[in-house]
């Protein structure tokens, strides 16, 4: 009796705690009786990360799409599932959701994840999920071959590309003028970049050159450092399924890092080690302390943007110059190019577990229609869309984005979209501070090759 009573009290206490907890719960999906409910997920959230994209979905895509479906006699409601976290965390969450047969119907992923998601069975070729409409989508004709490649894995299209970007050398024209360098600077070799750095240094610029290095910057070191330089030295991280080991191009890249960070005073090695080093490099550029900086177009749109940037520069248009990234010497870049760049881009795809794949694809295609992209990119949110028809129109007033779209994208290269890439990327990042920290420039490539062999499953998969 006593025992029962005590159990009862515990149960009541526990239940009241749970009841309190349950207050925050709402009921699940109420879509019944012909109504179709779709969800769309992005790593974007109102009031936070990528807020403009989230607002566009909520205020334009959803009402317009529901309206269009209603006109066709379908009752479709769309719900946006926002997120606003680190890419790795977003990726983890998506993977766990997709593995368990959950997740939104339409999801955004980074282009670089396509291979590993496909291999895991988390995403499937669009035609398999949505039917032949996916192949005959009108937008494909507007998307350049290279950008389509972002969404392609093993010859099949797994997603629609959401956009792309490109990397250039930014420079501070005011500092250049003081150092006696031209405002229309365009180096044609690495040596010319180093020479400019020397001149900036002697004119008193605290950080003449900023090329991301080290593991603290994460993927920014790989994408805005090692890989564009590697392309400039004529190398690629993976060629025909074989990973590049301690070959000459990598040695050249690490040699350049050593010239910048190994005591020459051309770069600030401490900045590369700080957890918030990249933020700081942006801040310092905005304050006129950095001469040359290798970054993507995000830097122009989101960092030094006078209105919405995190390190705004009121005189961005006058002060910030940009130039293509040169090959080590003219004609020595990949494919024999004089100039190089690297690009990435997001993808938008379907959840293979979607209950309404046809409608989900319609929603997916709708978000990348010319109208939707024009709407999304107005009011200062211009970015390079995947569609040439849209780009022609929206990039007109944006000199840098036009420059990247016209001059840089034809030269650019992409990362290999395979599952082990993130680990290879970390190994590349680790090689860079080793050089700056004094490890002989030929030891670091050998160390990298050893690590690489461990990552990609043995020496057989590595070419040196």
């Amino acid at each position: 009796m006593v025992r029962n009573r005590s159990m009862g009290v515990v149960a009541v206490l526990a239940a009241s705690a749970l009841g309190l907890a349950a207050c925050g719960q709402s009921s699940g999906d109420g879509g019944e009786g012909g109504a179709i409910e779709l969800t769309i997920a992005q790593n974007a959230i109102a009031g936070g990360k990528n807020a403009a994209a989230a607002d566009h979905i909520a205020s334009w895509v959803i009402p317009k799409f529901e309206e269009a479906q209603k006109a066709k006699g379908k009752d479709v409601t769309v719900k946006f599932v926002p997120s606003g976290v680190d890419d790795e965390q977003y990726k983890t969450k998506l993977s766990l959701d997709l593995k368990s047969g959950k997740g939104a119907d339409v999801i955004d992923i980074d282009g670089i994840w396509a291979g590993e998601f496909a291999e895991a069975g988390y995403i499937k070729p669009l035609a398999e999920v949505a039917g032949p409409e996916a192949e005959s989508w009108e937008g494909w004709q507007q998307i350049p071959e290279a950008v389509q490649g972002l969404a392609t894995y093993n010859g099949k299209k797994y997603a629609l590309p959401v956009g792309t970007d490109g990397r250039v050398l930014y420079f501070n024209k005011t500092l250049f003028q003081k150092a006696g360098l031209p405002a229309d600077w365009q180096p044609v070799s690495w040596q010319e970049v180093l020479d400019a750095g020397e001149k900036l240094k002697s004119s008193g610029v605290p950080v003449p050159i900023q090329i991301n290095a080290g593991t603290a910057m994460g993927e920014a070191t790989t994408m805005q450092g090692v890989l564009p330089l590697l392309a400039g030295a004529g190398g690629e991280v993976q060629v025909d399924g074989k990973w590049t080991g301690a070959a000459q191009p990598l040695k050249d890249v690490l040699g350049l890092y050593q010239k910048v960070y190994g005591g020459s005073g051309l770069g600030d090695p401490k900045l590369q080690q700080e957890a918030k080093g990249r933020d700081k490099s942006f801040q310092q550029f905005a304050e006129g302390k950095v001469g040359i900086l290798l970054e993507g177009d995000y830097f122009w749109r989101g960092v030094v943007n006078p209105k919405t940037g995190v390190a705004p520069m009121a005189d961005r248009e006058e002060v910030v110059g940009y130039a293509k990234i040169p090959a080590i010497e003219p004609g020595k870049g990949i494919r024999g190019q004089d100039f190089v760049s690297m690009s990435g881009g997001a993808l938008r795809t379907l959840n293979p577990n979607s209950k309404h794949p046809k409608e989900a694809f319609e929603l997916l295609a709708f978000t990348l229609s010319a109208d939707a992209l024009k709407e999304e990119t107005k009011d200062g949110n211009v970015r390079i869309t995947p569609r040439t028809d849209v780009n022609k129109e929206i990039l007109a007033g944006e000199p840098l984005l036009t420059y990247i779209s016209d001059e840089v994208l034809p030269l650019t290269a992409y990362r290999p979209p395979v599952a082990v890439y993130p680990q290879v990327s970390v190994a590349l990042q680790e090689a860079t501070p080793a050089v700056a920290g004094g490890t002989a420039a030929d030891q670091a490539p050998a160390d990298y090759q050893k690590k690489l062999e461990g990552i990609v499953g043995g020496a057989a998969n590595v070419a040196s």
Partner: protein
Amino acid sequence: MTRFVAGRIGFYTLVALLLAFFTIPLLWLASAPFTSNPTYEVRVPDFTWENFQIILDHPYALGSLVNSLILAIGTAVLVVVMSALAAYALSRVRLPGRDALLYALLLLSSIITGTAAMVPLFQLAIELGLIDSHTGLILIMTGGLLPAAIFMIKDFMDTTPKSYEESARVFGASPLQIVRHVVVPVVRPGLATIAVWTIANVWGNFLMPYLLLSDVEKQPAAVIMYTLYTEGGQANLKVLSTFGLLYSVPVVLMYLFVSKKYGFRFHGGIKR
């Protein structure tokens, strides 16, 4: 006399140093939210309310604080009630293998609060239908915190004298009545400590709430805090510092409340 004075000086110097050590890091939180363009530098603020206006207009900021409250209080209630009962029983009756069990659970709890447990916990939540629900999250967080809570409270109960319980028993009180009316009042400061410890733990937890709650309307402040970065991962200090302050206030208020009401501190029972 001089020795006394020297002792006083030494005492106050030491206290001043310790106070400085614990206070100086807090200064940024007192200045940045009220500064127009905050950086990492602690400056005298220009007392702007603009940053707070941004947070007030934020679609999820205030709601996320409510969610944090639900999660923190729900977990704290469960942890305190369950650990008090369990610790009392374990303290007064020697169940076989009691201490070994307690140590084993304590060690296992360290695994479960780490990153590696995210997949099992996620799939467990899916199987039990607890995904996207505050209840599920509360149960999971309670499970992780219970062993340490039991361990701490048992330590308390072990040092409280048993004579009151014996007298209560002589007067015919049931074990549960004894716990409520005799034991709980004695160890109440300890329970308060556990409650605040639990609240602080839940309040700062980011990864599990993010993974288990898809609906942004249900996500706690810890998750929303992480969304206040730009697409390139740069910290927006204007909103981060301000939201950081607002995010800290409830947990401080809860501490003050518990501290005032229950004499929040380890008390160690009645002096003998």
